[in-house]
């Protein structure tokens, strides 16, 4: 059994070797954003070149530093030097990086981006002077891009497990729940419910077993922050789950991820393995009386699986269709046992909140929306990436100051926030603050943190059609108002996009939307009209042009209209194509 102090001593020793040793430490971001632009190939080239040149160096694959636009990003720390960043790397750039910088200490001009840390350099920019770094306040993402996601000692050396240790040895479970309540932390998954309050619901439920479920389904197009945390720093999630488990008296944690997202899956499973080895998970964690297990559960492709009751159905191996509530998960959850479902981001804040205290956390952000927002900026924006900023900034500050605004001198047209069900905002929304309640009042949600930016070339009808097509494709089919309503709404949107719509189509849409809202079990149907409602509110002129003047002002709708048809077909259709089945008797 290893105590926290023993782990910390070992972690600090290893960390000193890394940062103050005699070998360069090279970190390469290979999260999904890096992989998509060739980071894996860059790492391979780097390793083979270093070996060929016989240069000893530590090479770590890390997660996402947030500046996805700069990927593939190579971060080189030479003994006694600052971290120097090389952006947009390709395998053929590796040779000159090694020759020029590693061997000769000349900075190759082609890829150099800047430096971080001491000693300062005057020949290249200090990254802290860039808004993409300076405007951030990283809590849940504090280690992303800085530490190796498979090395628990790097995590512990940077403050990891201190929160869990404090909870286990200095706090009663109820005190942990109270601390979370006092921090004002609200769920980052979409509903923005008070996290501490949610935890308190399960405290008195009977167990064992009792479950903490970490939701990383994250099917929202435009959001990649949950996956980003799992790829960059899975330990902060695991520690957060263990803290939630201790606070609520749970025995088991399940990390729920979509099949096919191999980076997040592999890194989480590796981290779980390392955590068990270090005694941070399993029996008598850190030498305490508390025991807790965590495993990964994969879901098939289904957006609705991210809804909390559908998620439990999926973990049980069934169709991910929502359950009726009550009973609520805190009493009757997965396998009929008490369960608390939190989003990955929400749980990832817990270690720092417990370690540094609720006052520290609630001093960041604004009243009612404490802490930070983790936003995924993408679309027509100069610096797309994964950023963590204090709550209370305006959307304008995030889009223009941090994100660099719309490229090519074009005008901002609309923002789509919080996933497809979140709705759209117009260009006049830049004064709105990152604040759960203010966003909701404005008709949008902060939700999962995705912010999709569209410029003047985008057509509100075209984008709304795509959002509705997504919602139609992903309706699970359980509630007919959603299943049929979404299909109906897509037909209407396609009609309008083909310039065949009429004014009465919009009334029909609204009537269908109201039925969906009243008659659906989960948010998918209840909020399914949001994209259309909000688009009509902000971009009525776009709809009028299509319907009354029979033209698409930007021409986006004149291109081929492609949208997949729902493929959740009946088993009979599949069986008709296959050989007749021999019926397997149940034993």
């Amino acid at each position, binding site marked *: 059994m290893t105590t926290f102090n023993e782990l910390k001593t070992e972690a600090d020793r290893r960390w000193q070797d890394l940062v103050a040793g005699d070998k360069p430490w090279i970190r390469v971001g290979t999260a*999904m*954003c890096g*992989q*998509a*632009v060739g980071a894996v190939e860059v790492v391979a080239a780097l390793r083979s070149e270093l070996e060929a040149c016989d240069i000893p160096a530590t090479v770590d694959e890390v997660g996402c530093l947030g500046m*996805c636009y700069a*990927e593939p990003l190579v971060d080189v720390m030479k003994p006694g030097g600052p971290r120097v960043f090389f952006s947009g790397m390709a395998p053929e750039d590796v040779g000159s990086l090694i020759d020029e910088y590693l061997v000769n200490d000349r900075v190759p001009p082609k890829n150099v981006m800047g430096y971080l840390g001491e000693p300062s350099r005057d020949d290249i920019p200090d990254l802290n002077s860039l808004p993409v770094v300076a405007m951030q306040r990283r809590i849940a993402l504090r280690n992303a891009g800085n530490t190796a996601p498979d090395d628990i000692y790097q995590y512990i050396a940077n403050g990891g497990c201190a929160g869990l240790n404090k909870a286990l040895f200095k706090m009663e479970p109820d005190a942990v729940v109270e601390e979370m309540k006092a921090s004002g932390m609200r769920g980052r998954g979409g509903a923005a419910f008070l996290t501490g309050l949610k935890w308190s619901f399960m405290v008195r439920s009977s167990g064992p077993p009792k479950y903490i479920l970490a939701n990383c389904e994250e099917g929202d*197009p*435009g*959001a*990649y922050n949950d*996956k980003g945390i799992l790829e960059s720093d899975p330990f902060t999630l695991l520690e957060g789950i263990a803290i939630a488990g201790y606070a609520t008296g749970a025995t088991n944690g399940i990390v729920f991820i979509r*099949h*096919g997202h191999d980076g997040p899956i592999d890194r989480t499973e590796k981290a779980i393995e390392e955590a068990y080895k270090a005694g941070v998970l399993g029996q008598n964690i850190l030498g305490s009386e508390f025991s807790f297990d965590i*495993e990964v*559960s*994969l*879901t*098939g*492709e*289904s*957006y609705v699986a991210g809804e909390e009751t559908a998620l439990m159905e999926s*973990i*049980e*191996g*069934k169709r*991910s269709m929502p359950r009726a509530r009550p009973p609520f998960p805190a009493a009757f959850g997965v396998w009929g046992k008490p369960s608390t479902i939190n989003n990955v981001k929400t749980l990832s804040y817990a270690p720092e909140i417990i370690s540094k205290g609720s006052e520290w956390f609630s001093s960041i952000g604004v009243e009612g929306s404490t802490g930070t927002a983790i936003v*995924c*900026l*993408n*679309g027509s924006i100069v610096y*797309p*990436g*994964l950023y963590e900023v204090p709550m209370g900034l305006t959307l304008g500050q995030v889009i223009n100051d941090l994100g660099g605004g719309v490229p090519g001198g074009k005008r901002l047209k609309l923002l789509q926030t919080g996933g*497809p069900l979140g709705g759209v905002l117009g260009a006049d929304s830049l004064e709105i603050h990152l604040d759960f309640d203010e966003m909701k009042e404005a008709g949008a949600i902060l939700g999962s943190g*995705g912010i*999709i930016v*569209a410029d003047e070339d*985008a057509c509100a009808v075209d*984008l709304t059609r*795509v959002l509705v097509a*997504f919602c139609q*494709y992903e309706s699970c089919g359980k509630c007919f108002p959603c299943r049929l309503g979404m299909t109906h709404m897509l037909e209407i949107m396609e009609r309008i996009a083909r310039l065949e719509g009429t004014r009465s189509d919009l009334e029909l849409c609204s009537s269908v939307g109201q039925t969906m809202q009243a008659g659906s079990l989960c948010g998918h149907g209840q909020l399914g009209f949001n994209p259309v409602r909000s688009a009509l509110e902000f971009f009525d002129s776009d709809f009028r042009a299509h319907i009354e003047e029979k033209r698409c002002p930007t021409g986006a709708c004149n*291109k*081929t209209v*492609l949208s*997949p048809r729902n*493929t*959740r*077909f*009946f*088993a009979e*259709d*599949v069986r008709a194509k*296959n*050989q007749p*089945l*021999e019926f*397997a008797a*149940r034993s």
Partner: protein
Amino acid sequence: MVATENGNLRERIRQAVAGQKRPTTTVLSSLLAAQDELGYLPGEAIEEVARLTDASINDVWGVASFYTNFRFEPPAEHMVEVCWGPTCHLVGASTILKQLLDDLGLTGEGDTSDGRITLKYNTCLGACAQAPVMSIDHHLRGRMTIEKARSLVAQASKRDS
């Protein structure tokens, strides 16, 4: 001959389903394991999963037909997925998709007649910062243009799996 092939198929399915490493196995996890092994779910997989998880054939079909990543015929040699999520759409995914469909002689999701390429739409591949995104044999490729996408698909068509 047919019987042996069928026997091998069943054996591969049984091993894949029985060899799952995660502690909790369910109908869904077993179907995912079978499809990871074979690339699709033949009728035999449905039967074997039903046997091994003590579920009914209908229950297993129910799950298999629900999740859109399951397929019931062997895939082509290479899997090309193109993202049509809103971010990718805004930055040109539909024109890339249209060009690939034309090049491959397809009108929608499906397999090419020569059995080389399976084209699939994906609702979000998860690398929106690098939009437009596609994936070839599960390797993500971002910052796509029509030219880059065509050349990647052409390379895959020529490559043996």
